């Protein structure tokens, strides 16, 4: 079996390195991350991020055989005899599979991802802000985002305007607060998206939804936000 990895270090030209992997070292149920860790033990210069190893921390987003995903929850046996790994597209590469997610984080920060409850109620720690199970259920599908970047990195609108278009992850975060019954800034949040380079830059090709390793649907969330915005 062959693992091809697009290698990059600023001191040299980029190249694709081919590792021949003896299949005897593959175990049943082995994840791609374990295979990468094994390769790094042979070659400590191989660069990639990881942490929780169970798909919750969002560190190890990468492009796996052409599709974005998390290495720690991708089974090696599903990837065929030739695995090609590339850094997440659309971001500047720092080293090998490590990209600069700075622009991605900045878009997230720019949408003001923070609950804004009624200040007088929020100050009272003797009370909970009540929410019915139905109201709470509206957050399902958006609060679970792990900020891995797989969605925004698969989005041509984001590739084209990484400075202007918030990208699916940031827009999903907007939706998380817009639908929260405790939040009082719904209108301002929607207004902030009202420009040709913001939410309307999304053309719903649904690459984001296809890429999300958590099974979330940013495209649908964006659609819902557009409806809200246009019906205001």
């Amino acid at each position, binding site marked *: 079996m062959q693992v091809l990895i697009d290698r990059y270090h600023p001191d040299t030209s980029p190249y694709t390195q081919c590792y021949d992997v003896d299949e005897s070292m593959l175990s049943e149920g082995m994840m791609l991350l374990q295979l990468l860790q094994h390769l790094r033990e042979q070659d400590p210069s191989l660069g990639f991020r990881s942490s929780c*190893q169970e798909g919750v921390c969002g560190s190890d987003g990468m492009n796996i055989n052409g599709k974005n995903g998390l290495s720690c929850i991708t089974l090696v046996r599903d990837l065929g005899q030739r695995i090609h790994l590339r850094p997440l597209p659309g971001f500047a590469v720092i080293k090998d599979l490590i990209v600069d997610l700075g622009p991605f984080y900045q878009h997230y920060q720019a949408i003001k991802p923070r609950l804004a409850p009624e200040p007088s109620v929020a100050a009272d720690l003797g009370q909970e802000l*009540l929410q019915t199970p139905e109201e709470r259920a509206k957050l399902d599908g958006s609060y679970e985002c792990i900020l891995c970047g797989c969605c925004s990195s698969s989005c041509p609108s984001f590739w084209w305007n990484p400075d202007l278009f918030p990208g699916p992850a940031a827009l999903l975060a907007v939706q998380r607060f817009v639908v929260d019954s405790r939040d009082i800034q719904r209108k301002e949040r929607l207004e902030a998206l009202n420009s040709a380079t913001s939410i309307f830059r999304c053309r719903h090709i649904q690459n984001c939804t296809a890429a999300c390793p958590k099974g979330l649907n940013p495209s649908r969330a964006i659609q819902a936000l557009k409806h809200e915005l246009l019906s205001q």
Partner: protein
Amino acid sequence: MSALSQALTYQTFHFDVVIIGAGGAGLRAALALRQQGHKVAVVSKVFPTRSHTVSAQGGINAALGNAGDDQWQWHLYDTIKGSDYLGDQDAIEVMCQDAPKIVRELEHMGVPFSRQEDGKIYQRAFGGQSQHYGKSQAKRTCAAADRTGHAILHALYQQNLHAGTEIFSEYFALDLLRQNGSDLLICGVLVQNLQTSELSVLWAKHTLLATGGAGQIFRTNSNASINTGDGLGMAQRAGIPLQDMEFWQFHPTGVAGKGMLISEATRGEGGILRNANGEAFMGRYAPKVKELASRDVVTRAIALEVEQGRGCGPAQDHVLLDLTHLPHDVIENRLPGIREISRTFLGIDPLEAPIPIFPTCHYMMGGIPTNLEGQVILPKQPMGANHSEQIAVPGLFAIGECACVSVHGANRLGGNSLLDIVVFGRRAANAIHQALLMAPHELAVTEDTSNISALLQRYQRWLEPANPETELTVFSLKTELQKIMERHCGVFRDQAHMQQAVNQLEHLEHQFAALRLHDQSALFNFERSSALELENLLAVAKATAYSALARQESRGAHSRVDFSERDDQNWLKHTLFYAEKAQLTYKPVNLTPKHHAPFVPEKRVY
């Protein structure tokens, strides 16, 4: 020019407070301090939302009483009993009293807790919880489905973004800065940018360690790879002892053969443990509460079932966690993350088939000793006659899993860890705020009067290239360390095994001293950061093995075949391990809560 001949240079920054670690504890403290207007920096070796709090599943305990009668006093009792009476009762009292307010505060910050029909926060049953001091099962664990840690960590990060906290993301903390000759005045931290390898000195009036756990000392664990006890290593190197390091929680339900966590929430929602005969065996170990006994009890039960030949699978090496009888909507709505983990890592849908599980190293009850305000403390005369008198280390605080306050004693209750980090994160921030108001003046320490040059000298070895012929690598040493600990310091322990652990760790330490790096790149040098982490893991493992070997009793998670009973006469005391000479000393357990009659140690039955 070789790397060696380059003088090490560094940038310098000044802060009121530097917090090391951006998990729930660090971010909660940072938020409170930032909101008070202090100049705060958070140092994290990963982007904040990648910290291990994100993996916490089941929930956070608070006697809100949303799902039946509850009182903080019952929470206090349960936690003390759960700790096998080693927890400090004054600290546990503070935590349980603060809990309801702290959870409502999190809710106001946006944490998407699951809800009951009446709109209040959903609370589920967890192990070791009771109403009326042990009479009936309580439902005290506040949950956001089974992603409570993720929900809390993201909300805290969001709040810190809003507050404008300065975050040094992907910076590794190397060592604490100390004033030369002083009585251990801590004045900041030496850090390294992981991307560029540039060093920085962060001077701080107060330094707060919030570096989390170190479960990576065991081969099978539920911890992130970043959980390497960096704060504990730094504290030890600064001359601070570690407390109660023999107590490690093995979570009963890890994915068999892999170690990732299957939340206690599965049992709280009605899951049943079965052996190879299909028997729901917990009734034999905890007749009253069965699956909802304390974690140490359930873990030993599973280990014994397997040891006595009733394990499942071809190798008879695990038991089954059966959820198939639960209504589908309970699994879909309350345990979606568990279902995802089971399907991903085992190819098993818990709706249809039981999950193979086996205990996995999960949590470190011990840590850096602190008082109720998170201030790091140590005995005034470590080996003197009156070793119970404790003094604070000026400028240094510790909170969360890296600290030992001690609210978990010999065994932590599920749902108390998320609580611990938020309660003591907030308390430490308050204490630091007060200290800054009292003494707002600048630090008097300079480069020349601190240990900076010694720290830089220590760092030099990582610039020396490894002999290309050597088979010694950071990876092989880490694997060896994990095997030693698993073989000799696991769920069941005895003198002979632990002595071997001590001996083998000493040998490993010698090998580590000879370790150098093959990769000299300055750009995200993973080999180097792994080596720095391994140094800390070694420090943690050594403290564990020495402390465990000395404690000749069984208490909570420390279970000895050769001393199978708890011995309050001789061992109702906290261990303190000093690394420098591998010395042990002890200090008394606090048995006097302020607002409740003391709880006298009793036999622990579930």
